[in-house]
């Protein structure tokens, strides 16, 4: 925690030399979050890469005012959301020619990333609408407050709480159905 504060203060003072340490500390968490959100590891790594590259830009005087972990998780979630929208638009355009629209099911690649034990969970998460998945992962995995998630998603806090609640119910019913 103390180290995070120190890294944040140094970064806010324009010291880019702290970024390798920040990356090493949170790279696995951020890749996990992005992979769970996008259900695709290569796109997840792209999202993390883009976030750190944007932090490196010299003309941007970024100031991190909250926790480092929360800031990075929100940044990765924002980037993943953009990538997800782009991908969805691309699929819509491609289906106009041929082929069915790809649903949110996770591919074998993503299930392999998280291991056999998490296969059911990853598959269930993939069946949730993107906003619900994002609310659940940011709340439970990244430990963000509903208020912060609402700000990141640009919606009311009640909407985020609703997405979280409905998402959990659906997740539970999917997992229960699979186990029976």
């Amino acid at each position, binding site marked *: 925690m103390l180290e995070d504060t120190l890294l944040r203060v140094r970064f806010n003072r324009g010291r880019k030399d702290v*970024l390798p340490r920040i990356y090493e500390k949170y790279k696995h968490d951020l890749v996990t979050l992005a992979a769970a959100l996008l259900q695709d590891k290569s796109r997840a790594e792209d999202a993390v890469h883009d976030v750190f*590259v944007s932090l*490196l830009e010299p003309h941007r005087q970024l100031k991190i*005012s909250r926790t480092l972990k929360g800031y990075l998780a929100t940044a990765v979630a924002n980037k993943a959301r953009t990538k997800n929208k782009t991908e969805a638009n691309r699929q819509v355009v491609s289906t106009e020619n041929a082929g069915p629209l790809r649903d949110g099911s996770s591919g074998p690649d993503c299930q392999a990333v*998280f291991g056999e034990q998490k296969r059911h969970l990853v598959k269930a998460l993939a069946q949730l609408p993107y906003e619900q998945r994002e609310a659940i992962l940011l709340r*439970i995995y990244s430990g963000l407050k509903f208020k912060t998630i609402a700000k990141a998603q640009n919606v009311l806090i009640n909407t985020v709480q609703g997405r979280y609640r409905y998402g959990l119910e659906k997740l*539970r019913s999917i997992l229960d159905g699979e186990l029976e």
Partner: protein
Amino acid sequence: MKPADNNIGKQIKDLRAQASAELDEKLHHRFQQALEKQKTIPVEHQPIQRTATLHSRIIKLAAAAAVVVAVCWLTARQKEVPQQPGTNKAAAATIFETPAELVSVISLNMAFRDGGLEAVEEQFEKAEKKVKSGLTENITANKLMHELQEY
């Protein structure tokens, strides 16, 4: 959160994916490039530490509070100075010289405002002393009355 939700929560928290070596390599290369670039930036173009410190919200608040306290303290001090007892009383005693002036309504009013009944009493005593000692003039009771009427 229900017990089943706790289980789901635990499973989600246990999710783990590893960042690939390829990503590590790409990003470390970018970090290295950026650091080398930063070293070549002249000092005058680098961010000023003094202004960077003031970006912290707590420091801004503390600075604002210090300014407010300083202004309040100075204002209070300035108001205190003319209200100190005795300063005007001394001035009133120096303004009014003759016994007639000393017991006039204006001088007594000023003395009362500055020091209350004690000051009025002192002023009377002073006038009485002056009359008795005859320092000012050869004052008789009639002359004093005449002077008072004139004043």
